């Protein structure tokens, strides 16, 4: 490997590592922020202490997830420049403003209201506090909107031309740039993925505690809410994934060919490859298990439709086939398992056994991390599938990288690996420990945290008020 190729691969490894680590956190915090907003709304509406308690239970976990998302996200906003300088120079006039809008409309909104959301309940009262929660949730969604607009533009660039300096600039209006062909599909698919991921994590925590204590009210409520979400959203997600696949087939056919493992073209009906080992060198899938004609049905909605394969694409424009062939299968398999869990929970619910079937609860615990794995697998599929380009068919990855020699990138990559594992794995351990504690009926404010900014007296008053409500409702039962 020559020095330049090595430096390029190191830079790619570093970006893949830092962005994959980062993506786990927003995938969870987008969903959790909305879940917290729903819980607080239900509490304000019904006054039932179980919602209040669940809010307090999950906000402690949210604050850790969000913090890790922030610090790992700051890294990304600088890494475009440190490691992908040529990309930044050329695509900056288009990608830059989209990300600037993300900062201005989303990051500040989240950060500005986060302090009040975490620490301010006793200072501002329930209604303003609810507003703060909603603003944080809105911020997470706006953030997803802008960053996915930028990402989608790199996947399916539209509305651009080159200026005399060789930079991508808008041809006219910004609307085709923002609403580029893959953006709406990617946005829907990704946001649903975040909700589904969160519902599986919340459901697993609820199920875990139901296995120990079937009567825990908090565990019951969170499990029921999470299973509704999974049952409703998993099928929608499969549909959304299918439409994004069709969109990808239209604009990035090579990616779909690699996902499908289609090295050859098929004149009348392409098989669906269930498993196999793609061999790029010899252009075939070894030991493949196939279902005849099914791929044509999925992609063209016709059993006998002809499908082109990678043999119609210049070899230098192929994405790495094996990686996305596998990451795609992992994502789809997990998606089907999520659908299965959702249907199973519906059956249990219809039979009135939602809180009684340990098999369902064990399955839900098992599926707890599935969303995170699926999100990363999906992300790998779409990003690696964009290769060998940074801006699809317009700027090659090899032409995007910074002029930084390998030793420097090796050093930084090692530093990122050490620091990320040291900090974020600790964070994950703390989160799992908090999840392992059952939600109590007197869930405290995140008291010991920096968080108790209400001062001793008001915090005590608040807790007393909450306790009073709990006593009342318990008395009523």
């Amino acid at each position, binding site marked *: 490997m020559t020095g330049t190729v090595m430096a390029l691969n190191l830079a790619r490894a570093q970006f893949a590592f830092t962005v994959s680590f980062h993506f786990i956190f927003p995938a969870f915090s987008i969903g959790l922020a909305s879940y917290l907003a729903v819980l607080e709304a239900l509490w304000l509406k019904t006054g039932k202490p179980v919602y209040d308690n669940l809010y307090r239970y999950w906000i402690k976990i949210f604050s850790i997830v969000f913090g890790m998302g922030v610090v790992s996200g700051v890294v990304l906003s600088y890494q475009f420049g440190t*490691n992908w300088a040529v990309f930044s*120079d050329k695509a900056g006039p288009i990608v*830059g403003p989209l990300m*600037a809008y993300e900062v201005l409309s989303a990051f500040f909104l989240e950060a500005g209201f986060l*302090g009040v959301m*975490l620490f301010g309940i006793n200072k501002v009262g329930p209604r303003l506090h609810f507003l703060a929660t909603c603003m944080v949730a809105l911020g997470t969604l706006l953030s997803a909107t802008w960053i996915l607009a930028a990402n989608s533009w790199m996947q399916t660039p539209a509305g651009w031309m080159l200026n005399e300096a060789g930079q991508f600039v808008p041809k006219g209006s910004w609307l085709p740039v923002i609403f580029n062909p893959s953006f709406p599909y990617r946005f829907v698919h990704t946001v649903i993925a975040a909700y589904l991921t969160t519902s599986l994590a919340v459901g697993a925590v609820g199920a875990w505690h139901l296995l120990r204590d079937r009567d825990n009210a908090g565990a019951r409520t969170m499990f029921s809410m999470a299973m509704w979400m999974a049952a409703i959203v998993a099928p929608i997600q499969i549909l959304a994934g299918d439409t994004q696949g069709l969109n990808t087939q239209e604009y990035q056919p090579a990616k779909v060919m690699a996902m499908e493992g289609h090295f050859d073209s098929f004149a009348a009906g392409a098989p669906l490859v269930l498993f196999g080992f793609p061999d790029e060198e010899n252009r075939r899938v070894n030991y493949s298990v196939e279902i005849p004609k099914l791929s044509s049905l999925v992609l063209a909605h016709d059993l006998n439709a002809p499908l082109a394969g990678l043999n119609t694409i210049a070899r230098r424009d192929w994405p790495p086939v094996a990686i996305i062939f596998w990451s795609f299968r992992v994502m789809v398999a997990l998606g089907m398992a999520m659908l299965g869990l959702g249907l199973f929970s519906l059956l249990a619910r219809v039979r009135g056994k939602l809180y009684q079937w340990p098999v369902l609860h064990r399955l839900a615990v098992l599926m707890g991390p599935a969303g995170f794995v699926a999100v990363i697998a999906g992300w790998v599929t779409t990003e690696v599938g964009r290769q060998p380009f940074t801006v699809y068919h317009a700027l090659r990855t090899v032409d995007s990288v910074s002029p930084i*020699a390998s030793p420097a990138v090796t050093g*930084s990559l090692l530093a990122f690996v050490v620091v990320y594992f040291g900090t974020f794995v600790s964070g994950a351990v703390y989160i799992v420990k908090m999840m392992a504690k059952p939600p109590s009926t007197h869930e405290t404010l995140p008291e010991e945290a920096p968080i108790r900014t209400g001062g001793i007296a008001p915090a005590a008053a608040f807790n007393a008020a909450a306790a009073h409500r709990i006593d009342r409702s318990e008395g009523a039962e």
Partner: protein
Amino acid sequence: MHFDLTIVWAGIIVFAIAMYVVMDGFDLGIGILFTRFRVGAERTTAMNAIAPVWDGNETWLVMGGGGLMAAFPLAYAIILPALYAPIIAMLLGLVFRGVAFEFRWRDPDHRARWDAGFCLGSIIATFAQGVTLGALLQGIKISGRAYAGGYWDWITPFSVLTGVSLVAGYALLGACWLIWKTSGPLHAEARRLARPLTLALLAAIGAVSIYTPFLSNKYYETWFTSPGIAALAVMPVVVAAIGLMLFRRIGQGRDFLPFVLTLSLFGLSLLGLAISMWPDVIPSRVSIWEAAAPKSSQIFMLVGASVLIPLILAYTSWAYWVFRGKVSEGGYH
């Protein structure tokens, strides 16, 4: 007068950097001083003084970086590779700093470790920011539209000096913030720490100011010919006067004054920096007009910025107002 969007955007970026220095400066400063505070009540109070606001403060750094990429992509593409090591070090330092807010509460057995990480992360991030500034000021090798130097170019006596200077400056900001926002033993400790830090910052400002004109002919001519020479005549006097006032006010007087006076020292330093660099974004090599994004990008962003920045300032002020007053171990009173 001609309405120059490039100058407007340069102004917005400078504003974002200034906001960042003002706001995350005191956060990082408290981090730098953190292990000097007694375990228990003092550290808890110091943490509580910044916990509700640090995230918003750090967002100005993202704004500075993201804004630079959007408004001056060429500068972003040259400066960041040139300052690769300090930028990466800053980011990693900020990771340690940022996670410590939560982790020290979640893991009491290892609290000392996360406290040390909080302190070390703050020092590394601050030092790296100072080095970044110094390395930019001393000049960057360029060929065509790309950085052309090596990955050790950034380290020189001057960049180390600016790194150390910023550590002293942020530490003073942190101490002054604690003077303002706390009472009791921590308040007294902050007043004790602020005196030597004031001297250190004044010495640092002096050293950097004397060093800078001799880095390049351009700086020399800017400062030693008209109209720069007028500023050169006035600035040291103003800095010395504010420094003296600050030194006296640390011992007595209103609690918010030291913070405001320290900020004015930072403001003057930033003004000096702007005079040195104008109108370049990469000194003596790339002007703001050469690095600027095309007009359509500038206009598109300005539409959003002119609505959103006032909005951001409004709700950020509200968040600070919610947590107004003195902090104690238990929280805000």
